[in-house]
């Protein structure tokens, strides 16, 4: 039980690390989003599950609710951010054919945010 | 009334008033009535409190929640707190009377009454608390209430004043908070009395020195001492007049009270009993001298009456700080006397400025005039604070200055006395100008309106108190002495 818990913890943290690496390495905000939010979802869920296995006093309901909320909020957040990023004209690498361009009014890429 | 009620009421009543006026915001007349009732009730409670404070018994002390002292937060009827609570309540009453003729429904709908009451609660809380962190909380309440009052009309100048006020206020608050944190880290307690004994015994320490200086600077900023005073004249000039009067009477004095309690009470400033106190006193002394002279000088070139008075407010704080900086019991007694006198007086001066504006339509002295002829009663009521500020005997300002100057000579700080005298001279010049321009000069071509009765009533309350202090200084002197004893740690 403990070994399983620790393994889940480690795996979860590993996923988070991978997600963070992706956040740094991937070339545009859309791709980074895939890495961050989704790998994050799995990572945190695994960690919480690990805690539930390790800590007897932890209430199962709290842990499961946490996972549920994460599963609920992270993808919606991702959708929100994705669409907003698209509308804001964020850089998008490697997409040649953009069918969404006919539907949504994508802002011109403005250099409002200079790198500091 | 029992001690729990007497000590709670000066804060509890106005706070409850805040709550109920917040609920009744859409009904300005109800707000006004409620505000007035709250203030009057607070004054009654304050009088009961001061009677309790000077009855000769052990100082009344109530720990909220009924916990042991130094565990819970306690309010104590320990001088000078109760005396200042009385003064604050009197000022609030005068301002409320005055406000009847000056504060319209729009401002009341925006929460004028609640913010004024919050300021009263904050000031009274600071005057009564025995807990360092609780003191900080009251300062923050006062900061926000003042900010609300400054911006209540949302005018451009008000916003500018508010930004400066807020930025300064938060920097000062952070210095105070940092000081509190370090003190807590060193001493492990927030109770002022315990701190006084604990800090008095230790060897000189860098942390304690830093904490003392940070607190000093934070509270000096709140009291507007040079060079931390830049926020003050601008914000006074942007607040609605009754609020500015309350600021003048209450806000800076709250800061000075904290300075007094921390430096004289906690850090053993009376007689310089701790390693940290001599440098702190020197710092205050230099600030005081600079404040007195430079601010009295600055007032000369102003023509906006609120700005003149704003500078004078600061200069007066300089006198109080001078009393504190002398580092003797007489000096502290002088500071307390000065404080009480000055709170009443300066609120009154601002009310007078508002009345001049109401009658002549201008804040600018070059465009004001004719008050003696058109409003003789006003001229009389205004002459009292003007003469008192100029230090003309036998008004309160003379005794106050005399006490400080005398304490300075007796305490071996003749330079402070010299600075005080120079500043007094400048103040005379400044006050004579106000009188000459606003009261004597005739307003060519424009009619001078009558000052409404409510305004005069507000001024009358304060002028009467100033006259009373001047003609009968003995009771206040006694309170000032008792305060110095209490702060010095030998009080009953």
């Amino acid at each position, binding site marked *: 039980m403990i070994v399983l818990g620790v393994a889940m913890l480690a795996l979860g943290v590993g996923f988070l690390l991978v997600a963070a690496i992706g956040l740094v390495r991937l070339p545009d905000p859309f791709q980074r989003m895939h890495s961050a939010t989704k790998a994050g979802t799995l990572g945190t869920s695994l960690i919480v599950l690990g805690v539930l296995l390790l800590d007897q006093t932890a209430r199962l309901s709290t842990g499961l609710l946490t996972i549920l909320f994460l599963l609920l909020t992270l993808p919606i957040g991702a959708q929100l951010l994705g669409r907003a990023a698209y509308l804001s004209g964020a850089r998008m690498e490697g997409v040649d054919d953009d069918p969404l361009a006919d539907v949504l009014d994508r802002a011109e890429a403005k250099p409002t945010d200079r790198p500091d | 009334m029992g001690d*729990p009620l007497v000590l709670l009421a000066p804060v509890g009543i106005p706070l*409850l008033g805040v709550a109920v006026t917040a609920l009744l915001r859409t009904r300005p007349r109800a707000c006004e009535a409620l505000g007035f009732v709250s203030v009057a009730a607070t004054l009654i409670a304050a009088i009961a409190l001061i009677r309790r404070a000077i009855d000769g018994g052990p100082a009344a002390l109530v720990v909220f929640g009924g916990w042991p002292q130094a565990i819970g937060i306690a309010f104590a009827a320990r001088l000078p707190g109760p005396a200042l609570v009385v003064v604050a309540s009197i000022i609030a009453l005068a301002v409320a009377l005055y406000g009847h003729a000056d504060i319209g429904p729009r401002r009341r709908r925006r929460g004028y009454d609640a913010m004024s009451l919050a300021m009263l609660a*904050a000031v009274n809380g600071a005057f009564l608390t025995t807990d360092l962190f609780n003191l900080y909380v009251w300062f923050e309440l006062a900061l926000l209430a003042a900010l609300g009052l400054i911006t209540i009309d949302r005018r451009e100048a008000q916003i500018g004043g508010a930004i400066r006020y807020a930025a300064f206020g938060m920097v000062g608050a952070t210095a105070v908070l940092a000081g509190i944190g370090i003190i807590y*880290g060193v001493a492990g307690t927030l109770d002022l009395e315990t701190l006084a004994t604990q800090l008095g015994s230790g060897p000189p320490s860098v942390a304690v020195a830093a904490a003392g200086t940070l607190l000093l600077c934070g509270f000096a900023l709140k009291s507007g001492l040079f060079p931390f005073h830049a926020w003050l004249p601008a914000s006074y000039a942007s607040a609605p007049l009754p609020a500015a009067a309350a600021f003048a009477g209450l806000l800076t004095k709250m800061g000075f009270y904290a300075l007094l309690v921390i430096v004289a009470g906690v850090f053993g400033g009376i007689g310089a009993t701790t390693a940290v106190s001599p440098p702190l006193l020197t710092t205050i002394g230099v600030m005081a001298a600079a404040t007195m002279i430079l601010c009295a000088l600055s007032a000369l070139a102003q023509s906006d009456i609120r700005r003149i008075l704003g500078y004078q407010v600061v200069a007066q704080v300089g006198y109080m700080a001078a009393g504190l900086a002398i580092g003797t019991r007489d000096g502290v007694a002088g500071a307390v006397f000065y404080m009480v006198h000055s709170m009443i007086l300066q609120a009154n001066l601002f009310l007078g400025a508002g009345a001049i504006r109401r009658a002549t339509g201008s804040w600018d002295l070059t465009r004001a005039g004719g008050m003696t002829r058109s409003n003789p009663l006003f001229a009389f009521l205004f002459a009292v604070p003007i003469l008192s500020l100029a230090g003309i005997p036998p008004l309160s300002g003379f005794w106050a200055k005399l006490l400080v100057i005398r304490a300075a000579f007796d305490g071996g700080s003749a330079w402070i006395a010299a600075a005080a005298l120079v500043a007094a001279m400048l103040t005379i010049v400044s006050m004579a100008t106000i009188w000459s321009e606003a009261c004597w000069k005739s307003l060519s071509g424009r009619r001078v309106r009558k000052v409404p009765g409510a305004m005069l009533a507000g001024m009358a309350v304060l002028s009467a108190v100033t006259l009373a202090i001047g003609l009968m200084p*003995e009771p206040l002197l006694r309170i000032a002495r008792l305060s110095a004893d209490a702060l010095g740690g030998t009080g009953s």
Partner: protein
Amino acid sequence: MLLILFVALVGSCIVPLVARIMGKGAGLVVALFPFGLLGAFIALAPVIERGWVRSESWRWAPSLGLDVTLRLDGFSFLFCLLITAIGGLVTIYSGGYLTNRSRPDRSRFLTLILLFMTAMLGSVLADNMLVLIVFWEATSVLSFLLIGFDGRSARARRAAIMALQVTAGGGLALVAATVMIGHVLGSYSLSGAIDRAPEILASPLAAPIIIGILIAAFTKSAQFPFHFWLPNAMQAPTPASSYLHSATMVKLGIYLLARFEPLVAGIWWGRTVLITVACITMLIAATQALRAESFKAALAYSTIASLGILVLLVGLDGPAATVAMIGFLLAHALYKAALFFCAGSVLHSTGLGSLRALGGLRKSLPLTALACTGASLSMAGIPPFLGFISKEFLFEAQLESSWELIPLAIAVLVNAVMVGVAAVITLKPFFLKADHPIEIEHPESLSVAVPPLLLSLAGLVISLEPDWITRVAIRPAVAAVYRQPVKVDVAVWHGLTPMLALSAVVVAIGFVIVRYWRPIHLRLRRQGGFERFGIERMWERLLRTLLRASAALTRLVEHGDLRRYLATTIGVIAALVIATWWRIGAAPRIVIGDRPMLGDILVTLTGVAGALAAARAKNLLTAMVAVGLTGFAVAITFMTNGAPDLAITQFAVEALIVVLLTALLLIVPLSVKSTRSGSQRRTDGIIAASFGMVMFVTLLDMAAVQNATPAADWFGQMSYIAGQGHNVVNVILVDFRGFDTLGETAVIAIAALLAGSLLGVRPGKRDGDDAGQPVHYSFAAASGPLFVLLLVASIVILWRGHDQPGGGFVGGLAAALAFAILSLARGVRSAERTLRAQPSTLVGAGLVLAIVSGLPGMMGGQAFMTQLWTEPYGWVPKLSTTISFDLGVYMVVVGAVLAFLFGLQREAAR
């Protein structure tokens, strides 16, 4: 005497009301009052005559050393007689003089005059120096009010301010001297100070004390270099000039000097200064008197010269000087008051002030002409007038004193000028022909003619019948000042003496001056140097310099640049901390405590990196995000160091700040052009770094002295037992230190009111609604369930806060976040509709609940916020006043945050 003074004070306020009822005759009626006081003093004459001193005392403010001690000796008595007698005449005269004024004005004027009389009486009677100051400054203020009586005239206002500046400033010097005397002697008794002059002289404060007294006296008595205010003071109505600025008030300085003569003379330069100043004053005043064009100005300068003579006499040693001083004081008071009355009558009747324009008034103002002649003869020192006798005394004093002849020569010259001035002011207006015909506006009335006549007559009568006055006033006065009995022989004829010869010389030179008055006068007038180098000009230049300095200082200090203000403030704070360290001379102690874990270091580094990035960010959103990163790192630090309540609160606050500030950032431009130059940035960096270093050193040292926290330990022990809660932090917040929380709740409530006041929609402005906003499909669908979830969570957090992390604050923040979801997904309107109540209502109700929760515990004399617990049924969770208090906090927080949320989002949608 206390009674007399009290009656004088009360009477001064009441009696002049007669003038509101009566017309012209009011002056006569009111004059009964000062004459009554005169009678009261005369009744005391037998006491004085015997050389006794009468003292009375009343304790005013004993702890201030302030006893109203009055002391009537011969010197005071002489003053009292002068004050009340001339006061009565002035009152009569004013009644006739102020006929063209309204009744309230007349009443006001008489009040001021009588108050002034009271203040003068108090000044000369006071034995306590603090009381003396009270009355002394009162005379200055009343003089100010009288000079500016016609405040509509700019010249009058300016003259009044100048007089106040000089005389009240001199009063401050007296204050300083008094305080120092009190410091040396431990008492404020005037007579005591004079008796104990050697003690004062022995102290290091002797010189400052004497300088203070000299300044006070010189300002009041218009001595060089403070003489310039007096001619300007002639802007006062003439009765006031006559009373204050010639007969009485200006003599207060002489009074003070005469009293303190033993002290002043005790220092090596004392007499020299007195005599030098007196001589300079006399010369300047005599020259100016010859230059003067107007009647009143000529009188004013001759008054200054006379005051110079008096100071000279104080400065000279020997009993004869004292006798001369008393005699001249009396003579001058009588004739100069009379002359001012005459000048006033002329001005009143003709409306003309210039001597050159006047002439031939003998016929229209015969009584005045007569009075003027008498008074002038006295002034010129022509026998048998009193002025002659006093001049004899003067020369005798100079001859008897140990001084060189220069003062004597100057005195002769000045007296000759007096003769000339006396002749001119009598002959020109009354007896010589006018260049142009003069129209009489007001004919002479008895009430303006009789007072000067009486005074002139007194000058004659006293010199011819000197016995009574010598017995009751002059001799006791001399004895009081000289401090031992002196033989005084007042007589017109002393035989052929050197003094008589000097008098003859004076009169002779005087006649020469009269003869050549016109060329001298015109010559002097052409000399511009008097104006350019006059002290008055210098004073004005000084004032202007002060003003310019004031303006410059204001520009320098009040530059309106917030950055510089804050930089100064923070820099000074850092510097002061360092200065304190330097003064106490303690070195910082460095204790390396526990080794931090790698995780702690990394989290902390992240926080610091966020802060530094925020400081460097050129984009406001970047800055906000970076500040948020620091907040996040700090929250994680809280969490990993055993502070779950702090962590959750900090997280919630960070989230809310994002929600609220993005609404702000939607409105304002994000890209920041640099507002500071490179050097400014460097300065700021240095200031910031020094403050940081100060904090670093401090915190290191703090760790070295860190004490155990007994209070914190107590909380852990008692939290559950006494506070019934497992979460110690929450029990502290709602119970042990609930009062803090109450104050903080009030802070939040006021913040909410501010939101209402700053963000409230103005009528007429379009109500920003975002119904048409593109909202994300999934978000809109999910917002409902999320809202409910968060709201439920917030209530759970509130409820279990007493035992687990949570409580009113976090609960309230969570509930506000729930509404934030709604407003983000569906618009502000929708969220507001869901709330149903106004946020401010929630705030008010919450604050009421929080306060009221503390009240039930007060029953039975307990303290406010004493908690009450109840478990009505076994299955219902325990209820308590602390929980309802926390509920109040919750409501306030929700209301406040929503007030900002809705307001800011509305603004953003505009």
